[in-house]
């Protein structure tokens, strides 16, 4: 591993954000005096868990907690707080419930309900409008809870807004841009002004502009209040997910990534069912750096986890065995007081992690080999064996494998090839509809709008034909590198950034030397590579041609370089990377690795943590059946 000359600085304490949020929450809860029920909007249960436990809620008068659902009848006390995202859907549900309660109260069936709606992360005018239309505006009090970035771990912050991706990239609504900008503002207030600013992509640029205007909000107190503060973060990267769709669509092979793909990690918390824990009740586990064993394995390539776990198991066993050698009562007391508790803890999580690994192994080898899936993906990334890839996709359709995974491959194929040739494009889509149902047609329209799955533009295919020798047959032939004069924009970018490592012979996933290890040494995540290159020179100098090929708008803001270079402060080695539209655990792992090699500390902020499947799931049109 490349030793870094400079000592890496400490991470700023992102848990401060939790304290701030907690205080706000308590204040809001106390605004309704006495006992009350709390009704949480969808997707808010887990994030709230990270802010305040059930105990805290109870201390501040929360009696029962419900989840907001349609047609629910809440039997609780006569004071109620709703905590929801400001969507019209939520507000309508609430309005219905309030109306129900009103009728009940009029009939004298129960006391009049005191009702408060708290919108998070902010209150929107539309909500008032809906309340007005539903005729309950006067019956409720509204407020807002500025809950934006939630610390998931010591280096991960998340807005827990998976809908950002659809809302911004597909429906072009800027609803959440404000939230992102103000969350950045919040970061500045806690950790001081951030001197270097890089924005990649349209959304990032928008946020950046909005952010610049922000200090004037709140009567200019803020700008004043932070100028005197010491900076703890040196750089901010704002990256649109659209800059790099390829990375999230690749199968993850790090331990943490696989856990997320197989079990789903919610707000840093995972739930294991019977097959893992062997117990009837699902077991919840917090996945943070505080868990020693997890901290050791989370960033490893999956193949490298089992050996570690078995070693660790032996260690724990020998720890237990120590009890036979204990001689004095005092030793024994020591053992019980210190070692035993740790051992038990380790034992418990070891069992779970091993169980999880087994489940992952069995799931991944069921049906078509996982290895084959990976090979197809890597072929796509390298731009070779297209026909084989298409055949593979067809086979998956024929055999009715998980359709989101198949869709993922289709998108990956299109992304790496600048689209799919017209004939195959139509036939694959038709086959998909036949296999999975016609309702997927709308999803294809969405994917096209996003540019995730499209038809290859004509000139490309002509060029490729021109380069190879023959007429129609050549189009179906496997394009090999030599015969092509044309390369897709992804391939061009990949080549100039050296995303595909050439030297795969000496690859040892146990001792990685390069970020590409997170994809088994086959591919370096584009997003992370861009961060690395930009950080190298603190400018876009090296990556500008690539950004041009991929047509990514960019923007940066920096202090005068002279002053900046002379600044010996450590905070310049703390980097915040903010993904708009979500990021994967693999990317987080890659950045952690980059930090370790180059002596940086990365904090990753994101609108939500995604996997390829979750990303696509956001843009599928769900049909009620």
């Amino acid at each position, binding site marked *: 591993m490349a030793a870094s000359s400079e000592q890496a600085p400490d991470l700023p304490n992102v848990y401060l954000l939790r304290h701030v949020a907690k205080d706000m929450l308590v204040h809001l809860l106390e605004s309704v005096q006495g006992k009350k029920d709390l009704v949480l909007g969808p997707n808010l249960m887990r994030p709230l868990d990270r802010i305040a436990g059930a105990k805290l809620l109870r201390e501040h008068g929360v009696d029962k907690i419900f989840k907001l659902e349609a047609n629910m009848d809440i039997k609780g006390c006569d004071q109620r707080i709703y905590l929801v995202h400001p969507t019209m859907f939520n507000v309508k549900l609430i309005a219905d419930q309030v109306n129900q309660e009103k009728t009940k109260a009029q009939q004298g069936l129960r006391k009049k309900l005191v009702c408060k709606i708290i919108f998070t992360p902010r209150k929107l005018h539309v909500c008032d409008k809906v309340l007005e239309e539903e005729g309950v505006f006067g019956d409720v009090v509204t407020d807002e809870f500025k809950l934006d970035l939630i610390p998931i771990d010591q280096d991960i912050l998340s807005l827990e807004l998976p809908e950002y991706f659809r809302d911004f990239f597909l429906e072009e609504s800027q609803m959440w841009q404000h939230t992102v900008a103000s969350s950045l503002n919040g970061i500045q207030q806690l950790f001081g002004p951030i001197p270097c600013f890089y924005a990649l992509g349209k959304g990032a640029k928008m946020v950046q502009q909005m952010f610049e205007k922000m200090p004037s909000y709140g009567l200019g107190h803020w700008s004043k209040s932070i100028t005197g503060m010491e900076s703890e973060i040196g750089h901010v990267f704002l990256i649109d997910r659209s800059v790099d769709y390829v990375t999230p669509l690749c199968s993850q092979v790090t331990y943490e990534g696989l856990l997320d793909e197989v079990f789903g990690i919610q707000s840093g918390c995972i739930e294991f069912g019977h097959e893992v824990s062997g117990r009837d009740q699902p077991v919840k586990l917090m996945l943070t750096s505080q868990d020693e064993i997890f901290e050791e394995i989370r960033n490893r390539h999956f193949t490298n986890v089992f050996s570690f776990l078995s070693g660790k198991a032996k260690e724990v066993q020998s720890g237990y065995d120590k009890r036979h050698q204990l001689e004095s009562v005092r030793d024994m007391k020591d053992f019980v007081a210190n070692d035993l508790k740790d051992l038990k803890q380790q034992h418990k999580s070891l069992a779970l992690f091993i169980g999880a690994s087994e489940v992952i192994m069995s799931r991944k080898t069921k049906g078509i080999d996982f290895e084959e899936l990976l090979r197809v993906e890597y072929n796509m990334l390298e731009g070779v064996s297209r026909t084989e890839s298409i055949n593979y996709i067809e086979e998956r359709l024929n055999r009715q494998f998980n359709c989101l995974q198949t869709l993922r491959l289709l998108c990956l194929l299109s992304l790496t090839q600048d689209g799919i040739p017209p004939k195959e494009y139509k036939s694959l889509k*038709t086959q998909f509809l036949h296999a999975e149902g*016609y309702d997927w047609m709308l999803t294809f329209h969405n994917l096209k709008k996003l540019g995730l799955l499209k038809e290859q533009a004509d000139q490309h295919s002509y060029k490729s034909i021109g380069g190879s020798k023959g007429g129609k047959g050549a189009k179906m032939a496997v394009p090999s590198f030599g015969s092509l004069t044309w390369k897709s924009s992804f391939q061009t970018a990949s080549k100039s950034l050296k995303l595909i490592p050439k030297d795969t012979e000496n690859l040892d996933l146990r001792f990685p030397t390069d970020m590409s290890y997170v994809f088994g040494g086959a591919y370096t995540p584009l997003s992370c590579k861009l961060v690395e290159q930009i950080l190298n020179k603190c400018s876009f100098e090296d990556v500008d041609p690539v950004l041009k090929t991929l047509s990514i708008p960019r923007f940066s803001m920096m202090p005068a370089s002279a002053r900046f270079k002379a600044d010996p402060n450590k905070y310049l080695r703390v980097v915040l990377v903010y993904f708009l539209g979500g990021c994967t655990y693999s990317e987080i792992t890659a950045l952690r690795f980059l930090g370790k090699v180059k002596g940086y500390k990365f904090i990753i902020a994101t609108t939500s943590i995604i996997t390829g499947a979750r990303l696509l799931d956001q843009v599928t049109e769900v049909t009620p059946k």
Partner: protein
Amino acid sequence: MALATADWNPLGEVFYRKTELYQMEWMQDLYKYNVATAPYGGPIALIQDESKLVAKVQGNIKPTVYIYSAAGREITRFTWNSGHVIQLGWSNTEDLLCVQDDGGVLVYDIFGNFKRTFSLGTEVKDTKVLEVKIFQTANTTGIAVLTSTYRIFVCNNIEDPRVRRLAEVPGLQAPPSSWAIINQDRQTRALVAKENELFLLDHGGQYQQQTVDVSIPVESFIEMSVSFNNKYLALFTNTGLLWIGSADLQKVYCEFNTKSAVRPTQLCWCGTGSIVSYWAELNLLLMVGPSKDWVKYSYDTPVTLVQEIDGLRIIGNDTHEFLQRVPPVVEEIFKIGSMAPGAMLYEASREFGKGSQRADEYIRMIKDKLDLAVEQCIEGAGYEYEPKSQKALLRAASFGKCFLTDVRPETFVNMCQMLRVLNAVRDYTVGLPLTYTQLQSLTLPVLIDRLVVRRHYPLAVRICQYLKIPEADGASRIMAHWACYKVEQTGVEDEAIARSISQKLGDTPGVSYSEIANKALDVGRPELATRLLDYEPRAAEQVPLLMKMKKEQLALSKAIESGDTDLMYMVILNLKEKMSLGDFYMTIRNMPVAHALYLQYCRQENLKNLQDLYYQEDNFQEEGDCRVKECYTEERLESRIDCLMAAMECYNKARNEWAAKVTEEQVKLLKYQRKMEEELNKPYLNLSLHRTMYQLVKENNHKLAETLKKEFKVPDRRFWWLKIRALAEAGDWMELDRFSKTKKSPIGYEPFIEVCMENHNRFEATKYLTRVAPENKVKCHVRVGQLKEAAEIAFQQRNEEELNFVLSKCGPMHKDVVTQITGMKSQLGAKR
């Protein structure tokens, strides 16, 4: 200065002193007027007393309302044009309240500008008001009225006028002999005397009869007074007995017989330590202390009394005086013969001023208590009204400080600052005779507000700057008030006002231009408002006002500029309400951001609207998508098909042939499915094509499946996969075998093995082994568990790699195979 005690009057153990605050500037005779004065050195309002007027002048003359500062300087006067005023009073924000006999309350500001009006309700209106009491609660001002039906109505907060009717006093046939409002623990109660009976009426409509411990029998309580802090009560009987006790009537402090059968004109508390009764007819003030001590003051002219937190103001035709208990610390310093440290220090300082060595002697005497002495002098200075004596005391404190090593300077500095502020506002041009105690209770921000209300903008700004109050809370806020006042000056050009405002205010933090613009709009100057709004940097403030000014287009573009979705929504929804739908679509079409936002709104709110919008824009692709979505919300199959047909038409218009084609197919499939459901009586609707065929095969309907295959041009490969999987799942091994022989499998025979194994039928799987392509043979044998055969085939094919693959699949129970393979490998190696 030896005369410091000259105006002191002993009242029992303590002293009272009377200080002259101002020589009144006015030339008024209070006799002619009803007077209302606000506490905390507030303004004085006068209105002709009609009872006295009518006696003198016949005819209906409209009375005049005068407002004076505490120094008797006229602030304004105006002719009263409304109904019959029963009582004037002041609110805690120094608004003039005029309560009429019909229960109407008119609110004016200190400059006599009408602000608003509210009513105390129809019941009050119908029964007419007899008497009014205006009272202060913790931070609001309330009004209580007694109507001609002898009921009391209370409004606790004039900012939020909700009127409550208090309980009825049993058997009250005449006006109560006296009544008062007591405000304690956030509860407002009325204490009503029906001759010698006392009743306490509370909010909840309850009453309690009270007993009061009076030594001699009482015929009637004809006057009562509650102290400033609502803790003490004084009652006056028709026999002239003055009863002093606690407000809950539980404690009696003293009874004092004034021997006056005449009802006092005013009965007031002087702070909390004594009670003062005033008889206008006698021009006499009588102060009674809790231990039956008394002091008498005589006046030549009528006066009016104002209760303060720490004393009593006495306003006469010519002078304005303040009567207070001499504060203990002042008493200690100045009392003749006092040996208190403060007194000694004061003496020392005086001697020092004269250059006398006795200064040293005095200092020595209080050496140990010097810090206390300094404190006393500082504190004492705060209670002095005359700058001269303030200075003397502060000088003494400063002198004493020299002998101390570690004194924290804050108290001294703070006191100097406060006294400067107090002296500035006490100046007769300002006329706010506040004491130090009053200022502390009032707080500094409120004092600044009061200066602003009086339009003493420069003084307020200077005080803020002097006290280093942050600009946003202090100077710039005052400046904004000034600007609001400025825009009301109708005589001045818009241009000039805008310029002068922007010059003065610049971009000071904390100035809200929108607030000023709003004011300009309120006074009917939209042009000026627009001009001012240009200076407003915050879109969130700008936009609502622009909408109010009906400049929606501008509002929309400003909102978009800000990037704040909420603002955009606000404008868009507002526009939608105001404009015709067509105009509205036209407007937002030119603004992509707004357009996208509206689409999002429609998507959640109303799909139909969205469809219309796309139709209007000839966006057939999206319209088609909407139709498809609509289809999924429909229940009936016919309407679903209708929707899809409509969608197909849209896609055709959009030249999306593929979408049109698959939509057509979808309709076709739906029709098939329905037909089959009818014929076979099993559910097929909503299944995908693949699933439908799968289901059919499973149910042994091979013919129908074939029809679908043909109809939808399903490729052989897929159909084979589907069919063998369905057959295997159904366990129809015969059919599977038969099917495998119909023709050469387009997908090879490996899948046959695969599906058999998936359904745990090893025996059937082995049937197909022979037909597998040679290159896959090894793998297939491994799959069915025939490791030995696999190894042999690999050996025949001389493929070491495959041999290794077989080896890797060997477990502990395959020892013989392992040895065999090792043998084969060595043979292969040898041959090479």
